[in-house]
């Protein structure tokens, strides 16, 4: 039995982040989904469990996150458009296969709805997997594009973009959402689109009428592996050149610039409103691609700012990339951890401290 996909509603619909991302993947033509129950992403798995079989597509609840991501590896090797989703502890288990897929150049979209850590941590929202997502999950020299939505509507759009980047560069892509992005509900007019998905003849279909193909990451001869790695690095350079994304808000006259992504950017927005009401001109620089990190754009913005304030739901991870990107502008940090979310008031206080401790730009 196959069901038709209902037309996208033009009026705003109240959608939960996890379900909206599941729907976005389905509308993007996702062929196969593999997952394992973990809070706070379980609704994504449940949505796919109901809808994928209705559409005659593949859904498997795996025995573990290791199983899920390796099923994803196998399906991706056939050229299928694959989604896998998890939350932080599951992401750690998926690290091995991420390394293999980066080495084997397999496209896949992986959604990590982050929770508090380390260890089993909490099920509250967190951004404590920034290092893991952007600096490498598994072993080896590789990079993975990381996209971070700050609203459910943006999460919907980034699902399609993520599939497209995955196919264009033959690479895993991570959509990094925090627990609030997964659990919150907000009115959305979802903008669905079908991403370009061209496998260009590397996919495994059975070798009928052509030479056999092998999908692998093993290159035992050092010269061969180095050639492969040089080619991967060239690909990462191309991604850094073409796929860097960020958004700015109220930056034109901003003396102090908040750098924040995801839910932290939502908090920052309220803080900026209040700061401006009190006469402090603040603005927001919001990285959307966490790797590639928008370093050049941030440096340009920082050159005109008196201070930068990085806000994260972590003990300070992205702030390291901000400090690397920014030349002389002082960088302040405010973060909460463990499922706690910074309040606008805390952020405004930090803006005032940053203003008081720094001088105006010459």
């Amino acid at each position, binding site marked *: 039995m196959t069901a038709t996909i209902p037309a996208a509603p033009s009026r705003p619909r109240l959608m939960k982040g996890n379900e909206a991302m599941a729907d976005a993947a389905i509308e993007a033509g996702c*062929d*196969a989904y*593999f997952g394992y129950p973990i809070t706070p992403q379980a609704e994504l798995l449940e949505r796919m469990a109901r809808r994928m079989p209705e559409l005659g597509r*593949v859904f*498997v609840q*795996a*025995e*573990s996150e*290791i*199983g*899920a991501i*390796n*099923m*994803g*590896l*196998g*399906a*991706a*090797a*056939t050229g*299928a458009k*694959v989604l896998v989703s998890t939350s932080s502890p599951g992401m750690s288990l998926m690290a*091995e*296969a991420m390394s*293999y897929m980066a080495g*084997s150049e397999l496209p896949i979209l992986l959604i990590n709805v982050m929770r508090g850590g380390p260890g089993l941590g909490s099920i509250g929202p967190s951004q404590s997997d920034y290092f893991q997502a952007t600096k490498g999950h598994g072993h080896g020299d590789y990079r993975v594009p990381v996209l971070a939505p700050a609203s459910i509507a943006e999460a919907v759009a980034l699902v399609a973009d993520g599939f497209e980047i995955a196919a264009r560069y033959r690479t895993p892509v991570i959509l990094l959402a925090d627990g609030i992005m997964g659990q919150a509900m907000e009115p959305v007019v979802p903008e669905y689109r079908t991403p370009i998905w061209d496998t260009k003849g590397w996919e*495994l*279909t*059975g*070798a*009928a*009428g052509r030479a*056999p*193909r*092998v*999908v*692998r*990451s*093993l290159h035992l001869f050092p010269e061969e592996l180095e050639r492969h790695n040089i080619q991967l690095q060239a690909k990462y350079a191309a991604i850094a050149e073409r796929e860097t994304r960020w958004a700015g808000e109220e930056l034109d006259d901003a003396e102090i610039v908040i750098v924040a992504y995801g839910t932290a950017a939502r908090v920052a927005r309220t803080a900026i409103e209040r700061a401006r009401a009190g006469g402090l001109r603040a603005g927001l620089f919001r990285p959307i691609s966490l790797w590639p990190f928008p370093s050049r754009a941030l440096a340009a913005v920082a050159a005109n700012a008196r201070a930068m304030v990085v806000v994260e739901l972590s003990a300070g991870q992205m702030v390291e990339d901000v400090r690397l990107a920014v030349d002389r502008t002082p960088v302040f940090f405010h973060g909460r951890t463990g499922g706690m979310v910074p309040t606008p008031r805390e952020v405004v206080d930090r803006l005032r401290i940053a203003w008081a401790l720094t001088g105006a730009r010459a």
Partner: protein
Amino acid sequence: MTTTPVGGRRIVYQRPTLLTDRSTHYCPGCGHGIIHRVIAELLDELQLGPTTIGVASVGCSVFAYDYFGIDFVESPHGRAPAVATGVRRARPNAFVFTYQGDGDLAAIGTAEIVHAAARGERISVVFVNNGIYGMTGGQMAPTTLLGQHTTSSPLGRDAAVAGFPIPITEMLALLPGVAYAARGTITDPGQIGKTKAMLRRAFESQLAGEGLSIVEVLSTCPVGWGLTPTESMAHVTNEVTAVYPLGVIVDRRRAATRKDGS
């Protein structure tokens, strides 16, 4: 094997078309060459070459993809049944088999093989058991016999410290998702023929959509065991088969047929 007359002579033995024309990296006396050949013959005979996607695992046999003329995907260590699940689900018309060693399947990959079996995935598993981690230098595997000397059990495997050999094929055969489970060996032409018949039945089971099929093949590792190739064959016959008995462990189609009285 084809016996086409050529120039008045009949070819009674030749390289299967699906085995590539290159030397393998396997050590002298290693069983992988024989098992590769049997698989290639069967894929030829069942005309499965064009639709097959093989899943290579980690161990000596990781290079299997260099020796078969079919599509292949490499899997992380132990994960081949999960990878094969993804391949088979995404491409339901493909013929999918994994080729796994005993370290891969019976140690690091136990969760993946057990749950692929529980789900009754339509895949065939070629499980090559030589009782040792060959590629990394001959360490103890879960399948290593009690008392057997390896580089990580230098005084012999002691059950008090390292537990007992794991009869994982018998364990898997308990699961209803396993349509066919058998154990063969490659110690002489007769046994090779029997193993080939088991693999044929396993492959046909997948084609009939019956569930997961697994054939454990007791193999040799002369270098890892410190024995000559012929001593290794004798070791399998005399010692290994005593712990891991040969034969069909479960065949649910035959069992069902008997119940029907048909």
